[in-house]
């Protein structure tokens, strides 16, 4: 396996010497996400496999090219899970790609996002240097936290070779409830429930119907079911339902219109935008399929205290990610320079100049 690393490092050094872009890629399941795809592909799947898994330490370490499905199966066998429930968006998703994309699924609402579970990374920077940050332990404040910001960096800072993740246990019991509610009422209730000790682990509202998932101790799930009411979903149907939300395979996501991801404070009122919406994360995540212009959508998101991402679209001319304030953009450029001085990694994937 060391030979694979040396091969990767050799390609990085050669590309850096010629300032030639490299496109870091696992299974390619998230090629749709982000701005431009530029450069020659460096396929990370050559470096695959779980390196260490200690269920009693709640830590797994895997190589970047490990299929995400393989990692999840290993965890499931020990009654553990990736609590942030990452979407695969295809059969070939890898662990490295999952962390680089930084996308979390329905359980993110209360469990936390990818970055919250990253404990350490080993990476090759833009010089081909082999570096380790963080570690395999739960608490670690030695040096700057370089590992967590790798989540969602879209491969712009380095080639993650190995990643250590915190892996909590699966809940003892789960139940899914369905309630008929208009959007404003659903948002009000979600925020109200969020302030109570209820075992809510996911929600999805669309077209007047709110689905809620409860996860935890059997007694807590039972008590919450009684308190919330609504109609219970069969376990198999519930599993299929949440999988379709996570993988965006449901009807809502197949409208053919551009798909926007609006990340806003949970208390933001219903957003007045043309198109259909699907709400997750207790009100904090609003999916929108709409032909409205980017400027309007971004303005509405900003007005609500958040930001809008053009998640899936044929035309990304409007920019995928919301523009950064000048002071932040400057820090981004400086960090990119620190990690990737020749600007070779996933050039232009996040922002045209990053």
């Amino acid at each position, binding site marked *: 396996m060391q030979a694979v690393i040396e091969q990767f490092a050799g390609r990085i050094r050669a590309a850096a010497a010629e300032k030639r872009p490299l496109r870091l890629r696992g299974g390619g399941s998230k090629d749709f996400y982000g701005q431009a795809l530029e450069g020659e592909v460096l396929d990370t799947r050559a470096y695959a496999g779980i390196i260490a898994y*200690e*269920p*009693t*330490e*709640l*830590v797994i370490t895997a190589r970047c090219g490990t299929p995400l499905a393989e990692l999840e199966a290993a965890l499931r066998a020990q009654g553990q899970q990736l609590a942030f429930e990452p979407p695969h968006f295809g059969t070939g998703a890898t662990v490295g790609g999952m962390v680089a994309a930084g996308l979390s699924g329905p359980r*993110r609402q209360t469990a*936390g996002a990818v*970055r*919250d579970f990253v404990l350490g990374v080993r990476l090759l920077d833009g010089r081909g*240097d082999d*570096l*380790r*940050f963080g570690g*395999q*332990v*739960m*608490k*670690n*404040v*030695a*040096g*700057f*936290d370089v590992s*967590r*910001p790798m989540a*969602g*960096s879209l491969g712009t*800072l380095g080639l993650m070779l190995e990643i250590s993740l915190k892996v*909590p*246990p699966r809940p003892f019991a789960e139940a899914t409830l369905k309630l008929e509610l208009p959007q404003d009422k659903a948002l009000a209730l979600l*925020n*109200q429930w969020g*302030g*109570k*000790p209820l075992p809510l682990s996911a929600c999805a509202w669309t077209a007047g119907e709110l689905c809620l998932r409860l996860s*935890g*101790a*059997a*007694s*807590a799930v039972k*008590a919450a079911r009684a308190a919330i009411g609504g109609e219970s979903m069969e376990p198999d149907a519930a599993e299929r339902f949440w999988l379709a939300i996570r993988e965006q395979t449901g009807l809502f996501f197949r409208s053919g219109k551009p798909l926007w991801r609006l*990340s806003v*404070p*949970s208390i933001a009122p219903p957003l007045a935008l043309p198109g259909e919406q699907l709400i997750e994360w207790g009100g*904090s995540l609003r999916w929108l399929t709409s032909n409205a212009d980017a400027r309007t959508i971004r303005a509405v998101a900003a007005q609500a*205290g958040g*930001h809008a991402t053009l998640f899936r679209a044929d035309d990304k001319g409007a920019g995928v990610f919301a*523009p950064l304030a000048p*002071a*932040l953009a400057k*820090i*981004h450029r*400086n*960090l990119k*320079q*620190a*990690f990737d001085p020749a600007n070779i990694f996933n050039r232009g994937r*996040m*922002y045209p100049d990053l």
Partner: protein
Amino acid sequence: MNDQFRLLDPVRQAEAVKALRTILPAEAVLYEQEDTKPYECDGLSAYRELPMVVAMPANEDEVGRILRACRELKLPVVARGAGTGLSGGALPHGKGVLLSLAKMKRILALDPVARTARVQPGVRNSAISEAAAPYGLYYAPDPSSQIACSIGGNVAENAGGVHCLKYGLTVHNVLRVRACTVEGEVVEFGNEALDAPGLDLLALVMGSEGMLAVATEITVKLVPKPETARVILAAFDDVEKAGNAAADVIAAGIIPAGLEMMDQPATRAVEEYVHAGYDLNAAALLLCESDGTAEEVEEEIARMSAVLKQSGAYDFRISRNETERLKFWSGRKAAFSAMGRISPDYYCMDGTIPRKRLGEILMFIAAMEKKYGLRCPNVFHAGDGNLHPLILFDANDPDELRRTEAFAGEVLEKCIEVGGTITGEHGVGIEKINQMCVQFKPNELEMFRAVKRAFDPENLLNPEKNIPTLHRCAEFGRMRVKGGQLPHPELPRF
């Protein structure tokens, strides 16, 4: 311990005072020795240095202007909250400005529906939970100094606490940090939504020890207060057995609200002090807490009890009410102050290890006790592998002080060797800066320096902390040459 004493430069001081007085009222600029003396150290009092000037801004605008003035004069700036840090992160710079954020202690907004609080950096950790209590909410991270420590300091150190296995560290509970850059410009890391566009700089700023920016406003998450909590106090006749029991609880799919361990010397020291009712014959005690709704707690306590009995706990008590729960906890919570009663001084370490290596590390510590002739009781966050061995010494005896430092250094390096880290939650500061040279390779340290330059190209924000220079590592390497092989052979030696 302080080898960095610098002579005060009166000309520079006059320059700094003059510049700061154009920004702040006279009483907010301190420079007479009797006024600056209280700021000479933080919670790690073995290291002391008088700041050249202390500046006490009252708002963000003043922070920005102070930073601009300091940058113009090339003055180092060390930000300080409540000064309770344990690694010397807020140790002043003798040629710089100590920026005390203590006056910025207002809770700006608390939204019980959104479950967030927007606060100034000088707000005390527990003041947030107190303000949120009427709504059934609280701020989860609970470092042991929470009644005094400030949220700004918690951000700087990514503070933990006894409940962080279940509820997370500061990084998991902060949504947004508004800060001034070294240029005095206001930036926002994160926002009031769950994520922000671009790189996750919020994660990078957490635990950055005031070296990247100065926080002026912090938005924290508030979570529902658990309805009830109960704790199991389990006694073991063997330390390793207790460590394995902690692993068994987790293997059973349980994440306890708290999972703490104390060894016999620690138990004996605290029992005499607080009378928590601990079994003095136990080689180790484990505190295992469950919180949630009454039904949930009952279910989890039953599950925990079964595991702990199976794992060989010979004595076993479950708190029957809140008074008893607090009594069981009182000894653990008083562990540090109890050490202060049985020894003139104590030195608290903060390494983290993979829990399965606990037996090995405790044996190592026992060997070090003999080698250095010093006692070292242990308290341990068993859930997450974070160790707090406490070396007992007398600071008035220079040789004991020297032995304590050497003892601590060896333990920290052992933590690295078993796959852990030199600091779990207290930070590197000035205290563990040498061990950074052991934990990280030269090119990794260089990356840290590059990250620092990305925010602070002139190295003015809390310089000389956290990330050692090449030169410092070379010096440290020279002191600990092993087998004739110098670390960092690529460096020039001078």
